[in-house]
């Protein structure tokens, strides 16, 4: 029997607070950790089937046009240009393959063919020496060069913002630019495909196996039942592995054609070209307030880009409608159709750049109104969601602001430019953290063996988020077992289909499905014990009810199986679900070189129930560091002539390194959100990035009086600002 739950209403039972095992929430080491630190965890390109051939993708060297001839490749086993090969990656949760047909080029760098050889060296050489001929076409590659689309469903307004701006006591009206960002997961996209008759197994770096299976079956023209996907370990995702990509489709096609297993790994440069980029954004923010700093108007007018026909557009304003109160509002969402690499979800799509810019604007307003930045935010927290009037499922912003200010020593902050240590100017900045929360349909199966061992199975992935560990802790808590008695099996489409990892919904969605599966087993045990399930206590392999205590081995004949099925329900619409927090940064700006050093950074977050304090903290460290990158270092520059990504490796695209990141501080606020299923947990993987960069940028302003609105704040821009002020 499958235990099914649609989340239609609140759950105030706090059941997980009343279980006996006491493992959930504990800062346990990762279950798969010993394999990872010893190099034994095998990622996508790390199976070694016999007779493996190596494929290397060939990329277009024109921004658009027709491939006329791809030439031949001496020394290679095959040059494959199959009409099923895809032009770009599938968007997250898509149920169909992305556009196929590699002979038509839509952006420079698109995969147009695959060269396969017996060795990686021979394949690389042959791929680099193909003589490809094109009929090139002229296409727009810069957002400013086209008239953007204005999708009607993405525009919103209430009241009269222009009037609010004109009559405001204080206002801000400025434009920010953020560049394209790369997810830049450390494991380049890779796949190994192997056919057995009409069945194919593809081992790949993927975040969401159940939708990936549908995409891949559609791409290959086979039934999903003939396709097995494996992703036991994924070397980071950050959105870039949400959908299938060119390498996995090409590997499957090549393996069929050559009748032997084929591995295709992207080079780092190909990852930058072929994985979805976060669109560059132009954001005009207008804020109006009364003399007390109460917002009367909010405007957020954005321009993003994507390829013609791509449905995704960076949801920059996602959190704008509900973060702050204001009667007069306007959201404008414009999409420039241009021929740069496909844009898609990169960690915290929308808020990562939207909240960051908006929180910089709030800092500017605080200064203009001569109100403390923390106080300005506290004065504008809405009671219910603005415009819709929906209640919030839980709202922790005020607490996060007050708690953070106290912990960080915000009261020590000085006026702009008044703190210096030698040649370093010191400043402090803060920002609100906010990210929408969601659940996604998810299934899991749990088996409890007579020997007191449990096995959790779901096609969920662990992309570094800690899924193995939290699902083990959850099953241990529900079934009364130490975590070392729970085996968690993930990343295999032979297991029940899950939410997958993405959008911060993985832990809560898959966790609730495991909860339900365990509840199913608990009911069976309760029946054997002759009690009601809520009266059952399970701890260390013993079942107790009233004055009866029996060991699981006595109660179980063979094994018990439970299946859980979670679906989002009415609470998606009936309440506004979000996670909240606050970001704090102290930076030093070198008055001569413009170098910015982040000296201290702290985040205070509320994400509902914390499932493992250690892995949860690590998620926040990662998000906050993405924020440092957005503020200071990361920019995928595009060539203005052909649109190609110029900074397309890790020497040119600067992700923060060890020396860029100080000791970071993370604090969690205690919270149980009743509207997100019995687990009462919300997403966390992205909250840490939403607004983090703004805290850094606002700290730069406090240090030296300079606002950088064209991100990232590299030394050249700081120096220009310092010179302008001198």
């Amino acid at each position, binding site marked *: 029997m499958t235990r099914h739950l649609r989340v239609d209403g609140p759950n105030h039972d706090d059941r997980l607070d009343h279980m006996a095992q006491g493992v959930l929430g504990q800062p346990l080491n990762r279950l798969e950790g010993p394999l990872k630190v010893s190099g034994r965890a095998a990622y996508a390109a790390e199976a070694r089937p016999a007779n493996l051939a190596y494929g290397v993708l060939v990329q277009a060297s024109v921004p658009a046009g027709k491939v006329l001839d791809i030439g031949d490749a001496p020394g290679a086993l095959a040059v494959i240009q199959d009409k099923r090969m895809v032009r770009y990656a599938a968007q997250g949760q898509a149920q169909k393959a992305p556009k196929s047909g590699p002979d038509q080029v839509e952006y420079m760098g698109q995969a147009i063919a695959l060269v396969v050889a017996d060795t990686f060296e021979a394949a690389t050489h042959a791929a680099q020496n193909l003589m490809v001929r094109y009929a090139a076409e002229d296409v727009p590659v810069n957002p400013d060069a086209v008239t953007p689309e204005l999708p009607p469903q993405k525009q919103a307004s209430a009241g009269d913002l222009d009037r609010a701006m004109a009559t405001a006591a204080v206002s801000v009206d400025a434009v920010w630019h953020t560049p394209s960002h790369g997810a830049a997961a450390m494991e380049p996209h890779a796949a190994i495909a192997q056919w057995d008759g009409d069945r194919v197994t593809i081992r790949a770096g993927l975040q969401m196996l159940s939708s990936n299976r549908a995409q891949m079956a559609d791409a290959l023209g086979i039934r999903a039942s003939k396709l097995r996907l494996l992703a036991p370990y994924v*070397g980071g995702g950050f959105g870039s592995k949400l959908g299938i990509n060119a390498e996995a489709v090409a590997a499957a096609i090549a393996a069929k054609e050559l009748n032997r297993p084929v591995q295709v790994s992207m080079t780092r440069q190909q990852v930058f070209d072929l994985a979805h980029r976060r669109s560059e954004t132009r954001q005009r923010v207008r804020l109006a307030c009364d003399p007390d700093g109460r917002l009367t108007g909010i405007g957020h007018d954005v321009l993003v880009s994507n390829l013609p026909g791509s449905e995704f557009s960076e949801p920059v304003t996602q959190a704008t409608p509900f973060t702050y109160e204001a009667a007069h509002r306007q959201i404008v969402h414009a999409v420039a159709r241009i021929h740069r690499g496909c844009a898609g979800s990169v960690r915290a799509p929308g808020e990562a750049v939207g909240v960051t810019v908006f929180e910089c604007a709030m800092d500017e307003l605080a200064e203009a109104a001569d109100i403390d930045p923390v106080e300005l935010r506290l004065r504008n927290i809405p009671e219910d969601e603005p415009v819709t009037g929906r209640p919030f499922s839980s709202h922790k912003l005020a607490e996060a602001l007050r708690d953070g200010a106290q912990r960080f020593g915000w009261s020590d902050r000085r006026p702009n430019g008044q703190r210096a240590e030698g040649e370093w100017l010191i400043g402090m900045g803060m920002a609100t953290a906010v990210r929408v929360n969601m659940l996604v349909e998810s299934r899991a199966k749990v088996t409890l063996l007579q020997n007191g061992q449990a096995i959790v199975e779901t096609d969920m992935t662990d992309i570094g988020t800690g899924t193995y560990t939290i699902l083990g802790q959850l099953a241990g808590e529900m079934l009364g077992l130490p975590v070392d008695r729970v085996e968690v099996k993930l990343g295999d489409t032979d297991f029940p289909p899950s939410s997958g990892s993405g959008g911060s919904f993985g832990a809560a969605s898959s966790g609730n499905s495991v909860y339900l599966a365990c509840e199913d087993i608990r009911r069976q045990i309760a029946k054997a014990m002759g009690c009601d399930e809520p009266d059952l206590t399970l701890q260390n392999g013993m079942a107790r009810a009233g004055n009866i205590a029996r060991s699981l081995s006595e109660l179980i004949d063979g094994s018990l199986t439970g299946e859980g099925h979670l679906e989002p329900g009415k609470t998606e619409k009936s309440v506004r679900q979000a996670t909240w927090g606050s970001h704090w940064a102290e930076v030093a700006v070198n008055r001569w070189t413009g170098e910015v050093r982040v000296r201290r950074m702290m985040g205070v977050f509320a994400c509902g129930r914390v499932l493992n304090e250690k892995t949860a903290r690590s998620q926040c460290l990662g998000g906050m560091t993405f924020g440092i990158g957005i503020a200071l270092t990361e920019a995928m520059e595009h060539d203005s002539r052909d649109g190609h990504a110029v900074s397309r490796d*890790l020497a040119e695209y600067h992700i923060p390194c060890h020396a860029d990141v100080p000791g970071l501080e993370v604090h969690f606020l205690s919270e149980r959100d009743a509207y997100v299923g019995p687990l009462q947990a919300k997403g966390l993987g992205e909250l840490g990035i939403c607004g983090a960069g703004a805290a850094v940028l606002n700290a730069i302003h406090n240090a030296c009086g300079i606002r950088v609105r064209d991100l990232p704040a590299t030394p050249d821009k700081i120096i220009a600002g310092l010179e302008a002020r001198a």
Partner: protein
Amino acid sequence: MKITLNLNGTSHHLDVDPRTTLLDVLRHHLGLTGTKKGCDHGQCGACTVLMDGRRVNSCLTLACMAEDADITTIEGIGTPGNLSPLQQQFLDHDGFQCGYCTPGQICSATAMLEEIAAGWPSHASDSLDGPFDLTHAEIAERMSGNLCRCAAYPNIVAAIRQAGRDGSRQEDAA
């Protein structure tokens, strides 16, 4: 071409394309996939191995250049059931998330602690002569060739610092 590699204490006789990097020999020819390919250009450090005790990017090292050297990969540093003290600290401090850069971080840190012990200064050192305290700045500077997109950096530094302190205490006791 025929080469011999001394790897984790064992000799391997191989016949490889002369263009083959040490990294690809490990991963493709010997099935030692613990050493990771993150960029193939010496930019990320995921492929770090030890050659005669010194850390090198195996993606920038042709296999034939490693002949006669003693090479240690992550597989030679510890096993899941018998982790090195540094590996154990990475586990305890959650010095990784996805785990892909981790073998490189651990190989790099293993050699880095030796460099500090040998009195090699860094850009972050207060003096050229040492001894060098295992400060955050000192460790972070010396580890900056190893990128981690999950950004476990603070945890990695804490793990290395603890392993370094435990190591020097053991030396003091000996």
